[in-house]
């Protein structure tokens, strides 16, 4: 399954990636999905489909992001295992059978990790920084969530939060849901060895996504632990300032014309707002707790 927003020589892409699957005797279909009005991107594939290649083409009616496209297309895919490929050739075609093999060996989701050797130093540094941050915040064994290449059991994919910008963080959610998630080192595609530096806005967006993932994975069931810590510390700081100012007032120093008074009150008010949000969060979690599954069972193998 390939979800794309940008043009890529898709005919070549298809031929290259289909080859090892066919050679391995694996039955497969390729689903290409493009966002609204991206139909022109798929035109090179139409003759291939006409010649009998197993290709399905979709254009979405609305721009819903990569995870949203995945969710929409899920009902149309007939395989038991879904290979989600990046729209750019990031891993060598020979990686695909390896990923499928890992699923056969019992994993529910396999993340392709591009071997670092040969990649540009700038990419490696970025990757290390980002994944260090991911590990600190959320955990997990990942080194290359950005490869965009994963093999997933279909029924597992259906249970993951497929919305928003979470597609690259799906493996983290899969771990939370108790699925067996694995990272597999595979060769990088030669076309992928270029320095990737993006605009600061993109980095900022990823950082915000990561904050959402961090909160959803660590605190979804206990919002007050997050809001309480932040709000508690901020309101305590404000309270401390107010106590000091109050003591100085008692000692005879005027209070009303000191900007510090404003800082103290503002911090206190901000902190209380954080705490209140946490409490609202707890009420919402509690109100929704009845219908929510708090665990998933694993099958038991007979001895």
């Amino acid at each position, binding site marked *: 399954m390939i979800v794309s927003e940008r043009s890529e020589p898709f005919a070549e892409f298809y031929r290259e990636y289909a080859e090892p699957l066919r050679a391995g005797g694996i039955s497969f279909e390729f689903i290409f999905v493009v966002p609204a009005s991206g139909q022109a991107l798929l035109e090179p594939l139409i003759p291939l489909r006409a010649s009998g290649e197993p290709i399905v083409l979709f254009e979405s009616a609305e721009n819903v992001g990569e995870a949203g496209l995945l969710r929409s297309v899920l009902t149309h895919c007939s395989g038991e295992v879904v290979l989600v490929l990046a729209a750019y050739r990031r891993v060598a075609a020979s990686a695909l059978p390896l990923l499928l093999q890992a699923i056969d060996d019992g994993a529910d989701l396999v993340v392709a990790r591009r071997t670092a050797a040969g990649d540009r130093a700038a990419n490696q540094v970025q990757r290390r920084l980002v994944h260090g941050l991911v590990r600190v915040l959320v955990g997990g064994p990942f080194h290359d969530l950005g490869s965009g290449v994963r093999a997933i059991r279909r029924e597992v994919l259906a249970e993951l939060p497929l919305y928003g910008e979470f597609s690259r963080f799906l493996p983290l959610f899969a771990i939370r849901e108790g699925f067996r998630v694995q990272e597999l080192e595979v060769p990088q595609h030669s076309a992928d060895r270029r320095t990737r530096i993006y605009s600061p806005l993109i980095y900022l967006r990823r950082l915000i996504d990561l904050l959402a993932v961090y909160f959803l994975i660590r605190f979804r069931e206990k919002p007050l632990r997050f809001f309480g810590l932040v709000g508690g510390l901020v309101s305590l700081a404000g309270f401390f300032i107010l106590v000091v100012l109050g003591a100085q007032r008692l000692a005879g120093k005027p209070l009303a014309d000191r900007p510090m008074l404003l800082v103290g009150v503002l911090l206190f008010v901000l902190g209380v707002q954080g705490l209140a949000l946490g409490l609202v969060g707890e009420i919402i*979690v509690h109100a929704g707790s009845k219908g929510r599954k708090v665990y998933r069972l694993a099958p038991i193998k007979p001895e």
Partner: protein
Amino acid sequence: MLTITVPVYNEEESVGPMVDAVREALRGWRDDWELLFVDDGSRDGTVGAVQSRMPDEPRIRLIRLARNYGQSAAMQAGFDHARGDVIVTMDGDLQNDPRDIRALVTKLEDGFDLVAGYRERRKDFLVSRRIPSWLGNALVRRVTKVAIRDTGCTLKVFRRELLERLRLYSDLHRFIPALAVAVAGARVAEIPVRHHARRFGRGNYGISRVTKVLPDLITLAMLRRSREHPLQMFAAAGIAALTFALVTSVFAMLAAWDWADNGSVVVLTAVATCWLSLGGFLILAGLIAESSLQTDSDDRQFDGVLLRRIGSL
């Protein structure tokens, strides 16, 4: 039927002695029981150890969680899969004694929904376990207003009707009695139980859990007082903030009267605005909380408190 549900995490060595102890304790009293092990994602041979006892004891059941979810989820899984109308929870590490089950069940039949054990003579380390536990219990009592001596003792007996109204998530297993009173109006009793030192392995918790307890306690206290009407609580705090705003505005106006005092006017007006925004925010937050309860009211059974019929029909 009696269900004994035991969450186990890396308790390979404890499982066998546990099965023997339960069988021994219940022999001659009742036969209609099941022992339900909930494997919480163990990495050792716990599952195999349970399975090896299943052929010669058909009353053993086993479910496995997909990963290590923690004790609350494991207990909830046990409750969801229990077949009994009376359900016992017990630690998997042999610190509780199954011989106490009978006394707990007898007490339950006196008309309680939940009977909790409390460990009279704890066999734990004083500084790392007993003192934090003593402080924690005192805090739980104070905040939740539920008189429980030992909320950390897993050995408890429940009526099924109560468990149908409870939902354990996060780390709520530590506060089951308080939660049961807060959300279901349960009648709770406590009796002393035996406590053994761990025989195998080491405890699966550390002292760090104390830091997580405080937010959970605040949540419980709030659920108990204002689960049905959160706006009341938020609005009370909001009105307090608005009062501060009003008082500060009066001071600002007094300062404005005297134009020479420019600095005070600016600071006091800003301070009043802060309080005003907090008051408005809290009332709006209360409205959101209220609306989240509305979506929940389609399951009356879950929402209702436990009722006791007075007199005969």
